[in-house]
């Protein structure tokens, strides 16, 4: 069984601050890392291959530096990976990102199962997986808690819906998004790292794609535009309860009574 895992490089810390005067993001010294949610997807894929045979590949879209997370995924157990990188992909929203990844997947090979993490820690939308599945014309299931079996061209999963835990069979090929905390992702192997060679990481750019209409990628291919960014508003109506601990407790107690909490 050939499994593809979609991964992303994200800022190492979510504490990105915005200068309230200039509106510029302060990103000094913020390092990048592999999106933590993707680790569960990778672990799921590697475990499936250990049980049922086959190979794991990874794919990402990003700047050339994103190569490092492909290498990390290889150190965890993937056989190879692809970086989709081109200036023309820049400024992509969910729609254009998903389209780019789907084009990249078509170029990369045939897969029985595509696995995504629940969401990224920077974009936080949890939408790209389902859109990729739509572009590839394959079924998708999100919030997968476990992959229970693979047989007769089907994958059997347990997934979490809002009120129910559901067991399903899905005909392959399909795409699943796994929840966080569903397994214990293995650590990357330092030993494997010594053996990673350049040919294990493939770069694909716009020129390699089947669809070379620039209007389908990056900002041009995006349906949404960011009109402006601004710091979160502060609450204007506020008061403070002063005094020593006794006075503060008394003030708080009066407030609780006033608000009819008790």
């Amino acid at each position, binding site marked *: 069984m050939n499994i593809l895992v979609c991964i992303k490089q994200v800022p190492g810390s979510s504490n990105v601050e915005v200068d309230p005067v200039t509106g510029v993001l302060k990103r000094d010294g913020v390092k990048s890392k592999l999106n933590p949610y993707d680790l569960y997807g990778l672990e799921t894929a590697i475990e499936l291959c250990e049980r049922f045979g086959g190979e794991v590949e990874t794919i990402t879209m990003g700047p050339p530096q994103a190569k490092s997370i492909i290498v990390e995924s290889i150190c965890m157990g993937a056989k190879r990976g692809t970086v989709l990188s081109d200036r023309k992909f820049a400024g992509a929203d969910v729609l254009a990102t998903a389209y780019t990844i789907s084009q990249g997947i078509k170029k990369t090979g045939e897969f029985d199962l595509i696995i995504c993490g629940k969401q990224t820690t920077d974009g936080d939308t949890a939408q790209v997986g389902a859109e990729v599945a739509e572009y590839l014309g394959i079924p998708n299931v999100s919030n997968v808690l476990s992959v229970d079996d693979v047989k007769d061209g089907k994958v059997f999963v347990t997934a979490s819906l809002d009120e129910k835990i559901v067991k399903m069979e899905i005909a392959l090929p399909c795409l699943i998004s796994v929840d966080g905390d569903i397994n214990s992702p293995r650590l990357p192997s330092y030993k494997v790292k010594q053996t990673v060679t350049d040919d294990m990481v493939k770069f694909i750019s716009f020129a390699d794609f089947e669809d070379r209409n620039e209007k389908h990628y990056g900002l041009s291919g995006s349906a949404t535009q960011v009109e402006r960014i601004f710091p979160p508003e502060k609450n204007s109506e506020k008061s403070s309860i002063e005094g020593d601990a006794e006075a503060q*407790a008394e003030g708080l107690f009066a407030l609780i009574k006033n608000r009819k909490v008790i």
Partner: protein
Amino acid sequence: MGNLKINHNMINAEKAAELTKLCPFGAISYENGKLDISSACKMCKMCVKKGGGAIDYVEEEEVSVDKSLWRGVCVYVDHYGDKIHRVTYELIGKARELASVTGHPVYALVIGSDLGDGINKLLHYGVDKVFVYDSAELSDFRIEPYTAAFHDFIEKVKPSSILVGATNLGRQLAPRIAARCRAGLTADCTVLEMKENTDLVQIRPAFGGNIMAQIISTNTRPQFCTVRYKVFTEPKPNAEASGEIVKMEISDDKLTSAIKVLSGVDKPKDIDISESDVIVAVGRGAQSETMRAMAAELAELLGGVVACSRPLVEGNIYDAKHQIGLSGRTVKPKFIITLGISGAVQFAAGMKSSDCIVAVNTDKNAPIFDVAHYAIVGDVNEIVPKLIEKIKEAQADVQ
């Protein structure tokens, strides 16, 4: 839509260094005397604004959509059988506000099977039309038939905006249908506004909630967004039913699926912090065992639940279902008291629309005081036991 154009004649090593530093995403590089913008570019256009003309933004000609053909603000009705998820009512309330700007009708879309009496309840919330797809093929949520029915609705009715609850189901369905329509989708909006030209203004926290992004889709329809439960306020139902139920037909051969649902069991009833009217939230400054016990006691006295900030989940002190914030639950209680929580934006984004926020923290500069209505700069270890004592005394007096 457009592209960045580098005016290479203006670039020298000094200018390049300035531009490289200017880019918040590290997308500008200067190698071998050539300035380049990598795919890390997020099109924030900071380099255009502050680059002194070295980089220009070039507009592209575009085919424009005829917005007058798309009418109506539609809410996807999230439901299990005849039980409607309350986020639906919250969204209908918001849809009515949005539609009043443009004079558009408000629609509700129901996809399912054996829907029973639930649909009639929708008629008490001021929708103009409820469109219903009812088929045995739609009894379980499966992505392909639900998307097919949704798409059928969009082609026939052409709504301008579509609001979907950010439930597990909505988060799968919305992107799938948005991609099929080649339309824009904004996740987890916290503010929605309508422009007179029917563009839906969608505001959401970005970059872990450290900034807010205002997003629009100027050239595609419909405009999709998802909104979490408890972000908007549920309207009161009208005594009189109004609006019309429209039965929609779709042939079963469009409702095929490669997914088979084998079994479903109800989730064990967990504490849902977003359901509680009163929350006592505990952070790093109140993580001692004594303090946690006191927080639990206080929550019980106030008839509420205990919640926490992310570090306490990461430290395995509380289960993830207690967590407030972007990576946890969004809550909107009538009263929330935060104990020893500094209030990173990712936490604040998950609770700042609460009716009354009281924050207790020793650090007077803690960002939690930016969102709190009542600030108490002090030590939780001293204040909380005194407060508990006072509440107990008052209750003893009543008895």
